[in-house]
């Protein structure tokens, strides 16, 4: 297993895998699951908005935008 990282620290172009969602409140956690940010899901950081926040991530078949503060709660690892 790779080292646990926070999604907001991942740079565009990198591919990671979701380990868990840590903290952030019920609303955010449930919303992320509903949108497919679940344990084991492969995620690619696509880009960061022109003003530096939010970021766009690519899941297997959809694209999501989330604020850096929200990405902070998503713990990911690099594929080994």
């Amino acid at each position, binding site marked *: 297993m790779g080292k646990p990282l926070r999604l907001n620290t991942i740079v565009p172009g990198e591919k990671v895998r979701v380990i868990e969602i840590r903290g952030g409140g019920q*609303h955010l956690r449930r919303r992320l699951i509903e949108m*497919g940010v*679940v344990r084991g899901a492969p995620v690619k950081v696509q*880009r960061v908005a022109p003003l530096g*926040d*939010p970021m*766009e991530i690519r899941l297997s*078949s959809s*694209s999501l935008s989330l604020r850096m503060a929200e990405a902070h709660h998503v713990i990911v690892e690099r594929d080994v």
Partner: protein
Amino acid sequence: MKKTDLKIAIAGNPNAGKTTVFNALTGTRQHVANYPGVTVEKKSGLLKYKDMQMEIVDLPGTYSLTAASEDERVARNYIIHEKPDVVVDVIDASNFERNAYLTSQLLELGVRLVVVLNMSDRAKSQGQILDIEMIKERLGCEVVETVGSRGVGIGELKDSIARAVNRNPKDVTLDYGEEFGAFVDEVTDSIAAMKGGVDYASKRWIATKLLEYDPQVVQKFTDTYRSLGTTIMNRVREIRKNVEGHHRASLDILFAERRYGFAAGLYREILRKEPSGHRHFSDSVDDLVTHRFIGIPLFLGLMYLVFYVTFTFAGLPMEWIENGVGWLGNLVATYWPGDGPIKSLVVDGAISGVGGVLVFLPNILLLFMCISILEDSGYMARVAFIMDKLMHKIGLHGKSFIPMVLGFGCSVPAIMATRTLENRRDRLTTMLIIPLMSCGAKLPIYTLFIPAFFPMAWRPRVLWLLYLTGVMLAILLIRILRSSMLKGESTPFVMELPPYRVPTLKGIIIHMWERSKLYLKKAGTIILAVSIVMWFLTSYPKPAEIPGAQEVRGTAIEYSFAGRIGHAMEPAIKPLGFDWRIGTALIGAMAAKEVFVSQLAIIFSLSGDESGISRLTEKLRKNYTPLIGICVMLFCLISFPCMATIVMTKRESGSWKWAIFQLVGLTMLAYLITLIVYQVGIRI
């Protein structure tokens, strides 16, 4: 057997093409209303098929059916309480897994389901092949492939709906795993053992929701059973506490994961060929649209285009409407025998009132054409993506930017544009501050007062300063509102960036038509009524007739209710530097801001037309100081928006409460600021 009045609900994720399927099924026979008590819109239409008459309801697009948002509550309550005969679940075929999460919740509710794999052409072009028969077998329901935007598969969909009406839903039990499954079984049994029992939904569903501690279901359960339900609720709390201790997560999160697991499992089972290399086109567009340097200028350029189309293109038809209404007024005035109150009511009250309503129509049509294109193409989500950092800083959502910019043109369409905001608090906040974006109708006031009191070189700066004051006040108010009345946990920003799509002409036209109809029906009637009241206030009571004298016009208005109110107000507005004449003109300005100018001209016994207004400048210089000039402009900028705006706020916020709050709040703010400026101003 003749079947009538079947209820069909359409559910699905946002961006799954729900609306195109709905439009394809119902055509233009649509009806838009609000769900009782909330601002969420209920769109319904009629479909006659074979011997059946179906009412089709387009539920709000949601990713889930929890009680987390108003949209989700509305969709869920409709399914539970209205018990539609069939629920059509529109799925974006190229995003099956995520969309099937909602399907899993519909299955749990035990509805008669028809699954629609929409945009199947796109999914196929990406090389994805799904086993339709397998979906039918696993979910026990009808499955149809469609391309809603081109009407492909709609005939089959109608057939499937008709068949589904008589088909009993398969009892699909979601697997929550051994541990959680046992809890669900236990609570289900406890509910079943209760006297009376619950009947509004399946016991298993209620058990699941109690374990999730769904606020709505828990509330209803404890209200219905009071002490009887206490044992069950205590057990539920105990289970939740234990689970949280073991899993470091609450049951609603764990259940959500299991449901997603179901969706993912189903997808793996039915997937015959994986899609490959999709979104190339969207990606290249996004590289440009969200580019570090090009993204924002491009957006501002598009914004300018929307502004230009909405307000400049609309200029000509608006002129036609104004001329047409003027012509009609003259025609009636010419052929109406004699003079009298009824004639004046018809010509100056009703006809010009109708004109005042119709004049916004070109704006609204064009604005909603633009908004439809921006939304349906997927660009609106990018607007939020680009602008969110800035807007989040002042306490709003990225999407609030568009309505705010439109506010510089006219508050009425701008308030309608807040519809693109999903979160109610964001919507309300944006709506309430929009009048501070100095609208086009306030410009005539500035162009009268600025040249009257300021030398040429100062004029642009004063004008710019006025606009800036409005924006700064808006930001301040947003902050205040967000930390007081409209406080609350900010909902997650997490938002889908859908692939770009070509908007359909049909979709755009239906959208434009729908908005215009709503405007004319809901707002138009009230605006018309208020116009007539305003006409009455400025024309009655009449002084004794002194025919022919031009001077009499000024005295007539002074004699009217508006003039009397102006006089009565004088003590209150004196500290702002205003006299009764300004007060009276302000009352006239309630109908529309630009009326302030013509009213003032009439009060100074000048004609309300251009020559009168040019002479008004001299009168203003003679009667008022530059400080008063600034105060008038400030007051007009901040104070009560015109009645059309108020009516729109009422309509879009769903209650008079917010409209009156906006009216009173802004007027008080205007009073306070003008008071300070004037009082400080006369002392320096």
